[in-house]
């Protein structure tokens, strides 16, 4: 990074199964307006806009950024549209941050959204393609065998996934924006819920949400001005990285993908992180199916390979007494506007670092990790934010 960059404004919508009260433009505008308000800025202060979302077929609008240019205040400005599958919310924030770290812009608005109720994501993911293995049962059908491979490899007991499902939903009760507020969540409830794709039960999977997320990213000078004006401290970017690997080839490890490990190594090196479990105070990690928490604990180096489930089992990732709380917002398991889900991870760690996370704030956060992944566990985007200037 040539120039410093910080998050100075954060905004998100309330996430729901159907946001019938707003159009797509209304949805993204709601999040973007909140981010601007938080930064103490107006639309005119923004130099450029970077927007991301998952496949266009999720709403049935081709390249919707064209139609959204007005709603995002981009007319007369540069706007870019990123699409990197499920990791897109994170990748979008990174592309936007580079507009600042390259020295090109002072204040960049980045937005991500999905309005799943406008179409049918399961259908959109399952269109048969020539010469490609059919996905058929959507993302869950794709990931269930990978989870089974993890369980076999690690010897994890079967209740681990259910523990994550309960923990993230308890966290979500403290996040007013979360889609799911399941006050009566319990291990029994999860266990009784219908088995969708063995071993993924209904309550171990993410919801389908309408929602949007937005952030204002700023240069060092612009961040200083925003802090002076709003009294809210910036969250400084200490590292950001992206990695991709192919969907399939003989011998590919989809349980613990190398792209994730390489991406983490890159971002940790930039941020000077050597022992992630000790060096981070909180993390927001893309866990769309409960079992991905132990899998990503290992992939991200929070423990040795095969030990991820032990951290989950001992409550290490819980806000209530754990030493490394994961997904205090409730995570993807509690809100999943697909294209925005990655950006929500990046945004939630900004809230934590700024001390603005409200009821789900962890005390004394100095440094935090945001992670997003997509495709067949093959696209990764990560950033590290901290209170101190890098």
């Amino acid at each position, binding site marked *: *990074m*040539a120039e410093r960059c910080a998050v100075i404004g954060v905004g998100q919508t309330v996430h729901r199964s159907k946001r019938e009260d707003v159009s797509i433009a209304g949805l993204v505008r709601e999040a973007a307006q909140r981010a601007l308000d938080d930064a103490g800025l107006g639309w005119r202060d923004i130099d450029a806009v970077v927007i991301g979302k998952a*496949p*266009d077929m999720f709403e049935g*609008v*081709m390249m919707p950024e*064209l139609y959204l240019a007005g709603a995002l205040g981009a007319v007369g400005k540069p706007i870019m549209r990123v699409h990197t599958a499920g990791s897109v919310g994170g990748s979008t924030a990174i592309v936007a941050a580079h*507009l600042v770290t*390259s020295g090109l812009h002072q204040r960049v608005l980045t937005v991500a959204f999905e309005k799943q109720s406008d179409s049918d994501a399961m259908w959109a993911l399952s269109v048969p393609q020539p010469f490609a293995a059919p996905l058929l049962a959507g993302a869950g059908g794709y990931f269930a065998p990978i989870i089974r491979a993890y369980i076999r490899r690690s010897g994890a007991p079967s209740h681990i996934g259910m523990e994550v499902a309960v923990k993230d939903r308890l966290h979500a009760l403290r996040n007013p924006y979360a889609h799911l507020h399941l006050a009566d969540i319990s291990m029994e409830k999860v266990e009784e819920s219908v088995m969708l794709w063995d071993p993924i039960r209904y309550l171990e999977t993410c919801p389908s949400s309408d929602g949007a997320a937005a952030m204002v990213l700023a240069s060092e000078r612009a961040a200083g001005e925003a802090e002076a004006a709003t009294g809210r401290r910036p969250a400084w970017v200490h590292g950001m990285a992206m990695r991709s690997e192919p969907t399939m080839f003989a011998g590919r490890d989809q349980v613990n993908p190398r792209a994730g490990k390489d991406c983490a190594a890159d971002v940790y090196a930039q941020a000077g992180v050597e022992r992630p479990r000790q060096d981070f105070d909180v993390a927001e990690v893309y866990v769309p199916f409960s079992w991905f928490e132990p899998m990503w604990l290992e992939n991200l180096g929070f423990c040795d390979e095969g030990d991820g489930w032990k951290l989950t089992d001992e409550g290490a990732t819980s806000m209530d007494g754990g030493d490394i709380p994961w997904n205090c917002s409730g995570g993807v398991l509690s809100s999943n506007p697909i294209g925005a889900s990655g950006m929500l991870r990046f945004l939630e760690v900004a809230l934590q670092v700024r001390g603005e996370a409200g009821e789900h704030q962890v005390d004394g956060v100095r440094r935090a990790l945001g992670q997003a992944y997509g495709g067949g566990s093959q696209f990764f985007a990560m950033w590290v934010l901290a209170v101190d200037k890098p």
Partner: protein
Amino acid sequence: MSPAPPVHRGSRPVAVVSFAQTQHVRREANRNEVELLMPVIKEVFANIGITKDDVGFICSGSTDYLVGGPFSFVAALDAVGVWPPRRESHVEMDAAWALFEAWVLLQEGEIDAALVYGFGKSSMGDLAKILALQLDPYVMAPLWPDPVSLAALQARALIDAGKASERAIAEVAARSRRSALANPKAQVADDWSVDDLMAEEYVVNPLRRHALPPLTDGAAAVVLATEERAFEWVERPAFITGIDHRVETHALGARDLTVSPSTTKAASVAGAAAGGIDVAELHAPFAHQELILREALGLPDSVDVNPSGGPLAANPIMSAGLIRIGEAAARIMAGEATRALAHATSGPLLQQNLVAVLEGT
């Protein structure tokens, strides 16, 4: 080796050092997108004797809607072979914007080269219907306005404003197709006279067939490099001395369709106003749009516009904009031009525009 020209925008010189494209055709029936891309990517590296290990970043542009499935860019990655894992990104835009993303990253000095590519097969579906889905989903798309009818509205407005005539539009097409005779990759190339073209039936009044871009299956790739690498790999790199892009409102009724202020703005930020342009490659899919862009860019008649034949000779959706940058750079690398302008567009009726200025040493 001469030093790179001073950059007008950005902090360090970045150059186009290699360009490759497919033989553009109406219908590539026997090859899928990966197979279309593989020889192009092989060629773009072979041109300068490098491999994928020499590029620190990969960025592509494509759209899922052409294939009618999600994640068309995911499979396309197999044309590169991203193993071990690579730093990679994708825009759901013409690959000219992927080039912009790579250029931004190269400004920071962490990497010294990047691969950019774009691809699309128009033959996979009905492009007129597909592009209608690019319009405002609430008030426009339900009417299924096809791109030719929209373009005809724009051409009519241009003629009514006294800025064009049907004959001037035919002249653009005749010149483009004649220029394309020298471009072995072109899909449409001939030396029909303006009178011949004027004798064609209207497709949508006032546009005759010659004013429409061909439907094309094709792909293209570019390698970008920092100054040091650029001179290592080629004798005469095409340095990007300025690049910018701007968008206009999507509401067609709120725009003056006869002008392109976003092009003017982007050109100004990119430093095109300094003049001295020898060659301009303009992404004007419809013939009359070249007239709008010439005015927006203030190009004098002395500038050689679309010597490749431009999008009227081949219009592979999602890479036609990148090809403009590649073609402009190729003129500089060949020593045929000193200062070139490349333009790319996205969206209905020139809604979004990118301008790059390229210079040789």
